[in-house]
């Protein structure tokens, strides 16, 4: 039971970033490889706000606002230049954004390890024979709440439908009168906000340094793809599955141990995609000829 709880806790961290990946994919049709690094920028901004004496909740709120602006600016200043071209061009550009943001963090804050305070108390809570911190419980709760909000947002709001329309077929969206450029900007902004939230949830449990999200991004990408890439619920369920399998396999199969743990979700990803190429919750793309 403890291993499952630990797996869900770890999976929630991957899931938070996976949600940002899903959001940007669903609203722009792109995979943003810089999502993790953008989240790290957000966390450093939060850390700076805490350092100047702001209470942690207020610092996190301001960090989310800053994340939204950073995401929107990234789209407006860089990604929009690739609008109308092959999506692969913009995706490669996100790798460049990753490298630039990493350099920017080193330039502004340096590479030394810092500590980011938790939003939640440090106390431990026990249930069903397992133990977890309030931080773990809070992360899971925030994640579940975010998934519910995202589902409602995409399926029940006009802005959600407009974002899906623009991502599905930008040319048709323009013919329907939708300002596609502005919608992509909103999509990037919201995804960066979600990434910032993921960063603030993750940061207390890992050392704050410029590469803190690198490994998590690998897991998050695996979760997003495994979940179907455009399904928020799928991304979170897949992230939990990855977290549980990784934790249980690492603890019980000697040959895996801690060194090969990162390979576990990738093997799982490959096996499941062989059977279900559209992922666990994704819809198979069908086209009548």
């Amino acid at each position: 039971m403890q291993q499952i709880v630990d797996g869900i806790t770890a999976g929630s961290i991957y899931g938070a970033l996976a949600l940002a990946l899903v959001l940007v994919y669903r609203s722009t049709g792109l995979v943003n490889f810089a999502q993790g690094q953008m989240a790290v920028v957000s966390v450093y901004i939060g850390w700076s706000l805490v350092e100047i004496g702001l209470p942690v909740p207020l610092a996190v709120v301001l960090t989310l606002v800053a994340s939204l602006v950073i995401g929107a600016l990234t789209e407006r200043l860089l990604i929009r230049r690739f609008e109308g071209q092959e999506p692969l061009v913009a995706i490669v550009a996100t790798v460049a954004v990753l490298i630039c943001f990493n350099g920017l963090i080193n330039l502004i804050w340096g590479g030394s390890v810092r500590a980011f305070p938790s939003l939640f108390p440090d106390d431990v809570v026990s249930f069903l024979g397992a133990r977890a911190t309030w931080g773990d419980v809070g992360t899971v709760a925030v994640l579940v709440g975010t998934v519910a909000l995202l589902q409602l947002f995409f399926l029940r709001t006009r802005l959600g439908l407009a974002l899906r329309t623009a991502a599905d077929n930008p040319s048709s969206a323009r013919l329907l009168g939708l300002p596609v450029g502005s919608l992509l900007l909103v999509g990037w902004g919201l995804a960066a906000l979600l990434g910032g939230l993921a960063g603030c949830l993750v940061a207390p449990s890992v050392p704050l340094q410029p590469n803190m999200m690198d490994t998590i991004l690998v897991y998050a990408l695996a979760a997003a793809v495994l979940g179907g890439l455009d399904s928020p619920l799928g991304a979170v369920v897949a992230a939990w599955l990855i977290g549980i399998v990784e934790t249980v396999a690492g603890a019980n199969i000697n040959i895996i141990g801690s060194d090969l743990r990162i390979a576990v979700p990738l093997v799982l990803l490959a096996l499941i995609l062989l059977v279900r190429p559209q992922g666990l919750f994704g819809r198979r793309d069908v086209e009548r000829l």
Partner: protein
Amino acid sequence: MSFLEVAGLLAGYGAAEVLHGIDLAVAEGGATAVLGANGAGKTTLLRAITGEIRRSGRIAFAGTDITSRRTDQIARLGIGHVPQGRGTLNRLSVRDNLLAGALLRRDRREVKADVEDCLRLFPGLGERIDASAAALSGGEQQMLAISRALMGRPRLLLLDEPSLGLAPRVTAEVFAALHRLRAERGLTLLLVEQNARIALDLVDAAVVVEAGRVTLTGPAAEIAGDDGVRRAYLGV
């Protein structure tokens, strides 16, 4: 003054100019067909009107010069466009495709009523309302594309080859719906169509475009009686 007025239109893709000075007028409540062979510039004409490609000259809609407006701004003025290839939102359901057509409208109750109207116009769509648009047949996708454009309550509807790739029975169904739209709503149409016979039966005026230039223009009955048109497009 015409509802849609195109004068001296030059348009093309990159350095290649496809239209070399098109003049065209569509009256409010009227329907005009653009006839021509493959590559004549018919689709380019519609894409130029909706601002999707480079163009110069003058395009005015309801008295407003739209020559340099963006596609989304032109759509918001009330020009609906059913593009060649249909442009359905393939990852969305039929219902969401219809609602996407009405995203700029605020009158929720009337949007709901318009969805019902579209389903009455094309009953087959009602049976597939929750299906993904990608899973529809070509005919159903064409009906969905027309319905989605209607959801925006356009004042002028541009239709690009609605019969392309459809079986004769489905083509007849689509054009029967267009006849109904003209009769019941007085919808203004600009129709690009290879099937001249079915097009001339629907419209009241036509232009023939050859190699990016208008070579013939007049009332539909007159165009249908032209010897050149009869030989080239009506197979008579």
